């Protein structure tokens, strides 16, 4: 995704939910939301980690202040 954000791997963004956060990044870097979303949902192969923990509600998760958010690949298992 870094090619969408001028090569930056880390961004400081406002947003009380993941949905707001994605919208705010997308306003700065158009195309970001399209990469992550399938219509209004996170793509099935993408997970959101908030402070290191995979957050099951995806876009609907609330983000605590100063939280670290990562968009990572969804993990499988045997």
């Amino acid at each position, binding site marked *: 995704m870094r*090619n969408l954000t001028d090569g930056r791997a880390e961004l400081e963004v406002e947003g009380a939910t993941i949905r707001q956060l994605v919208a705010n990044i997308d306003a700065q870097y158009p195309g970001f939301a399209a990469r992550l979303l399938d219509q209004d949902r996170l793509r099935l*192969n993408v997970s959101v*980690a908030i402070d290191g923990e995979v957050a*099951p509600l995806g876009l609907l998760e609330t983000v605590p202040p100063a939280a670290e958010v*990562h968009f*990572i690949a*969804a*993990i499988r*298992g045997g």
Partner: protein
Amino acid sequence: MSTQYSVIGTRPIRHDGADKVTGRALYGADVQMAGLLHGFILRSPHAHARILSIDTSKAAAFPGVKAVITTHDFPAVDGNKMVDLGEGDTPLSYARGNVLAGDKVLYRGHAVAAVAAVNAHVAEEAAGLIEVVYEVLPCVLHAVDAMRSGAPLLHEDLRTTELGEATTTISNIAQHIRQSKGDIEAGFALADVIVEREFHTSTVHQGYIEPHNATALWNNDGRISIWCSTQGSFVVRDCTAAILDIPVSQIKVTPMEIGGGFGGKIPVYLEPVAALLSKKTGRPVKIVMPRQAVFEATGPTPGSYMKVKVGAKKDGSIVAAQAYLAFEAGAYPGAMVVPASMTVFAAYDIANALVDGYDVVVNKPSTAAYRAPGAPNAAFAMESVVDELALKLGIDPLDLRLRNAAKEGTRRVDGPRFPRIGCVEVLEAMKNSPHYQSPLGGPNRGRGVAIGFWFNIGLPSSCTLNVCADGNVNLIEGSTDIGGSRASIAMQAAEVLGLAAEEIHPTVVDTDSIGYTGVTGGSRTTFATGWAAYEAAQDVVRQMKERAAKLWDVKPEAVEASGGVYKSNGNSIGFKELAGRIAETGGPVVGRAAVNPRGAGGSFAGSIVDVEIDPETGKTTILRFTCVQDVGRAIHPAYVEGQMQGGSVQGIGWALNEEYFMSPDGRMMNSSFLDYRMPTALDVPMIETIIVEVPNPGHPFGVRGVGEANIVPPQAAIANAMSHATGTRFTRLPMSPPAVMEAIWCQGSSSQPS
């Protein structure tokens, strides 16, 4: 919460035990019903071919045959629609194409057509009468070959996704992913010692003893019932519904007892076929896969080509690490290269790291999850390199790992920081183990160690508890029980309710009878369905307080519950007695929970192994094996040990013998248990276990999933032990006797002594 538990940590007899030692337990293939027909699937004899025509007329006319179907019997659907396979997604066209081939077959064993007949023999005979005209195409079997330009293309429309972006390049590379951290070049510039090696691993199979099976009845009212062996009944329901283009509510899946899965019984192979055959015949249809088809046509784990480079300073601090991982997805995209990338350096705190991963399609069966999918391949490479680094630096291999071990707060190469993990505790337990402390003497012997990591996943789970008037509780859940999870889930409810494990009666039910529950996989069942049981038990406690309050005419908040005793103002009543009074205090008490929990911790496991190599034959004997694993909290320690031992022995088989031995034209030459040589009782010693408990702060009882991490380190630990025994580095799995002899003969020429 107090860590003094009365049920958790004990070893009760499993609830399904009597059924399973008497032969009464009903597995998928045991389903019998009136009017049952038997199905047989015709499979491709070619690894890569275009289907020019299929003539089913002779088969259909064969006496005893009731129906024949091909892909043309499937409804037309939008092939680009994504279907959720339980833990990941895939385009519907791939899921459907793997169930019955479309215009091409992509691997030998690819299903082409299916017959339903009065018995399995007739169905098999009739399948032989189906006339398929193929245009045979050149095949490609290994990732490195498939990545070359000019390689035969499996999918003429597969566009490579390059670092997340769709490209117009048509190739066998489904995607290239990259993860990075720090500055890799600056990191290597700091290194005093650098080790770089290439590794190859073969395709291996989960090897569950029970073949895939499915029975389906398409009823006259349009509803479909399916009985099958699966790790996820809801996944079967959803995938079958998508392929047949019918609403999920029209399908009821009953998960029968399952004879092993290890990840391989998540995908759907037979269910939509059995359902279509039932629709055509108006009768129930059962299909049981022959063992050869299980090898040739279900999902093994990817073979791989890997290159790993690690740099360290003289003091042992690792400063940079780089990995190139090319994984064979088989016929359809989805090699486990993403989790491999996320786990390859997970045990280490490395400032500068770069991982490139390639998901490559080849003419072998479409791969599926196998216990920590992707991680054992990656750990084989990384842990071998770390071992070599330790030798070069003159540092004990466990000390080198401890010096660089990942801890809470360590940033993984894929970005997130680790929560509380037990990597250091596992390494310390390995170092202090009786095994590692013992001397190892004798010629041709070596000791090796390795560590591995696997994630746990959360996913939804549901649980219902019904309180009986005698004070026992019936527990209803949807997680198929592969290794004793009825017990580990019931024990968590028992702990909350203050009951004995035997006073909870767990039942795994069909998809109509319980809320959505994810697959038994991803080391999630004891974690997530256990959590649902915990929450449902809390719901029961809340209601039982209300009942006690009613009896005593106090407010529910005034009632306290502890260890199954309810108290208020000097009144006291036990759970059992209170249960006897639920009818008069308001009727049935039903506890319910549906969860989608966060907080799935990860698990680290370590292997210590002593080997002896016969220099005359190349045979490797495992003299001693110890598995150490952080399990968070062992709910039922005997079944936790069982997971550790089972994963370790699968790792031993993977390391020493197991492989898909392919002919150049893509035929698996060893598709039986005789030739695909899994460990027997005679091939392995007792597997010593050391349970480390670093409670997972994300679970009420501290549970970490234990099913998978234990298969990650054995291959590397054995390779390291064999390297020490022979002075030759082993970089190719399996390290079978011929490979060992070749390595010994080549010693000093191509291989670098360690």
